[in-house]
């Protein structure tokens, strides 16, 4: 199949983009990297009247370390994140996850903003944004606002931007020194969306006990849950093998309730159990990978 006809608009500035989006509303879709949108147009899953090409808007293409975190423009390509020394310094896990997206040619085009707005439940960038509690900077004719990605990401393929809003950049908060983050990605075939990603963010207190634990798992077609409050009773406990076993049990039980216990679900849960052990050991500093991965 081929895409249906549309009117094409190629813009140079965010101001133009916001103006045109306000005028055209839902009749227009934004074309960034196009690595998901173009197949959807080709399969005619989407038939917009207007396509707005934002690839020339250089003001959305930047990676900036700031006082309170790392700002990444919406138009930054995955390969740029994967090779960025700045990202490697501030959020090594984000860099590694970007390098696991799709394949080399797809990473050259696909953008972080596009991936976050699409909110594919199996995708890497949404999961990283959920894990680190990233905030999106949104512009519309009404002005600028920031919103937590955790609030915007309601359900699979549903990132709840307001009418006429566009994502300009994403801010990953500065992480404490004693933070380790590790993720495991389980791909059935190279280049495909992973069947499972589990990511652990662990902050240790001065005695080496748990000061904070966040776990996000992408599996099945559900919005990846952010698991945080369910570990509150474990604060201060050292993340030894026994504690990690307990955490993994809770995570597997929680995911079991979300993705179901049919044959495919049971298989994913068994993979999750093994990968959780690897992630938790890394995040607890039991392996060398924990520090940087």
């Amino acid at each position: 199949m081929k895409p249906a006809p549309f009117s094409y608009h190629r813009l140079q500035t965010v101001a133009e983009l916001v103006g045109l989006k306000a005028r055209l509303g839902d009749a227009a879709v934004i074309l960034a990297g196009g690595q998901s949108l173009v197949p959807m147009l080709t399969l005619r899953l989407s038939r917009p009247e207007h396509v707005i090409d934002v690839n020339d808007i250089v003001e959305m293409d930047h990676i900036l370390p700031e006082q309170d975190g790392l700002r990444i423009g919406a138009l930054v390509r995955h390969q740029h994140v994967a090779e960025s020394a700045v990202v490697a310094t501030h959020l090594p896990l984000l860099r590694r996850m970007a390098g696991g997206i799709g394949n080399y040619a797809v990473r050259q085009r696909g953008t972080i903003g596009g991936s976050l707005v699409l909110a594919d439940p199996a995708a890497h960038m949404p999961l990283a944004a959920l894990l680190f509690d990233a905030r999106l900077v949104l512009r519309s004719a009404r002005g600028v606002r920031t919103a937590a990605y955790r609030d915007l990401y309601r359900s699979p393929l549903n990132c709840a931007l307001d009418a006429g809003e566009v994502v300009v950049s994403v801010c990953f908060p500065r992480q404490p020194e004693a933070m380790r983050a590790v993720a495991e990605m389980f791909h059935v075939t190279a280049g495909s969306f992973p069947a499972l990603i589990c990511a652990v963010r662990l902050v240790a207190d001065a005695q080496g006990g748990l000061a904070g634990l966040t776990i996000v798992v992408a599996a099945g077609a559900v919005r990846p849950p952010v698991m945080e409050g369910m570990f509150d009773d474990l604060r201060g406990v050292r993340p030894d093998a026994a504690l990690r076993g307990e955490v993994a049990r809770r995570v597997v039980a929680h995911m079991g309730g979300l993705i179901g216990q049919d044959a495919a679900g049971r298989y994913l849960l068994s993979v999750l159990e093994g990968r959780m052990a690897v992630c938790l050991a890394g995040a607890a500093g039991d392996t060398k990978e924990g520090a940087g991965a």
Partner: protein
Amino acid sequence: MIISLTVNGEVRDVAVEPHYLLSDVLRDRLDLTATHVGCEQGICGACTVLVDGQSARACLLFAVQMEGHAVTTLEGGAPSAELRALRAAFHTHHAQQCGFCTPGILMTFAAYLRDHPDCDEAGVRAVLGGNLCRCTGYGPIVRAIMAASAALREVADV
């Protein structure tokens, strides 16, 4: 609409509609048929070309987007050192059978070898995951790419 495309260093004016894919315009309007179209969903990699020197799926781009950018196909005017080395190594190592996937693989690795002169086999295999081949089992392709990489390093050392 008439757009002006820079393909293989030549500026070509071509009549297109905005929804025409780059892969179709290359093949059907410009007669550059080395760019093969397989899945048309970005999976198979057969249509990989270079856009401003970086690999990209021609089936995931609209031709109209390419105004102001340089597109390089396998036919490309003066082949790069990487492409010449890859071609020679693909011959030597019998790295193609039906040839459908070959152009996409050559374009992908022309860019990859240029940017990663010290690549290892694991890296090559990871990148090759973006190009489907249904004939060779990939072994000869990996050997050819590693040989091309080694040959390029030898030239660079001289």
